[in-house]
């Protein structure tokens, strides 16, 4: 039993070390399912959400990462779906979109920064 645990840990570590370099190179992973995490990332850079419009399938978790030298946050333009804490440099915020729809949001600190998450039903996938 102990040996199995050890080998599971070893494999996990291997998988982690293999997957780490791919984080910023979504295209390199091509069509693999693992790429979905990378594709669900919104970078906050130069006072912009990149990409400004992101399309994901229902159930996807979108992660915002702040790469600016100033704090930003993510707040729904209408309604209360999204309300992140303030993200300082390199901090992240994730939200899982279970229901299809269009989710518009902005930075509550710098309201000119706007973005949109389009969530498609799982069956809509191309």
């Amino acid at each position, binding site marked *: 039993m102990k040996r199995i645990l050890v080998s599971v840990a070893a494999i996990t570590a291997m998988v982690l070390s293999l997957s780490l370099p791919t984080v910023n190179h979504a295209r390199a992973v091509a069509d693999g399912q693992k790429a979905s995490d990378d594709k669900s990332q919104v970078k906050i850079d130069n006072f912009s959400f990149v990409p400004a419009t992101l399309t994901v399938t229902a159930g996807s978790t979108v992660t915002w990462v702040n790469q600016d030298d100033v704090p930003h946050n993510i707040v729904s333009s209408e309604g209360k779906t999204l309300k992140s804490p303030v993200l300082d440099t390199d901090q992240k915020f994730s939200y899982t979109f279970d229901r299809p729809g269009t989710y518009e949001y902005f930075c509550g600190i710098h309201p*000119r920064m706007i973005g949109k998450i389009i969530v498609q039903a799982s069956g809509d996938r191309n």
Partner: protein
Amino acid sequence: MRRKKEDLILHNHNHDGVDRRGFLKCMAWAGTGALCVVKGGILRSYSLSDPAGLAAGAANPGELSFIQISDSHMGFDKAANPDVVATLRVAVEKINAAPMRPEFLLHTGDISHLSKPEEFDTVDQVLKEAKASHVFYVPGEHDVLGDDGKQYLDRYGKGATSGGWYSFDHKGVHFIGLVNVLNLKAGGLGSLGQEQLEWLEDNVKGLSASTPIVVFAHIPLWSIYPDWGWGTDDSAQALAYLKRFGSVTVLNGHIHQIMQKVEGNIAFHTATSTAFPQPHPGSAPSPGPMKVPADQLRSLLGLTSVEYVEGKHSLAIVDSSLA
């Protein structure tokens, strides 16, 4: 063709007289405050870094002098200025070295960088060393993070309305502190809101048109560069209430650089930061903190004098004459 690093901005498409060199001169204000003197109802501002300008601006007895400082961003620790405490201290030293005693300080917001209690505490402590006895604040967007301004109001809102805006009179001048960093809307700019606008209309209703007015708020109350959020959506309504007054001065922060303009009877003035410079509108991909070599940031202190420009109807960014 080889291009020198310092020639990155080759042309001045705005024809505003500000080329890269002029802009660097404006940057020299980083870490200083501006001294404001009201003479005959007209406000003039002087760089605290320019003793000659200060001497010229020394208030005679009976005249009013005060200091505007802005955007101390306590807690900011990135490359553009890893030690914002030190530069705030420099500003206080300049205040204390000035030949005349300012009667109070106006801080036009972004006191803190992340609205942390210890950030506000530090600013309070450093500013206590200034020889001006009292500091009047308005909040910046960095001071109201996460709690819609509750902490800010608890600390600085005593004597203000529940929304944080207030007015006071000093030596015949009517001062109005406005809040334009709350209840911001997606895609929008700074916002005063209907409640505050109604208060403002009522606040100035009984005043004689000859009363000098000084309005201060964090985000500029004039449209400087909306693409970067440098303006306030409903400022025109606020300014309309002030049109009948002979002398109105609007003091703002937020953009970390000096810009001035006179429109009719209203003079607009933005202050530099004590923490870090920001780029000239449109000259960079974003308004983020502008990195300059550390020795340059400090050595640029104490170089510029700025005069309030009267009668100019175009956007007047002061191309300072370096002493």
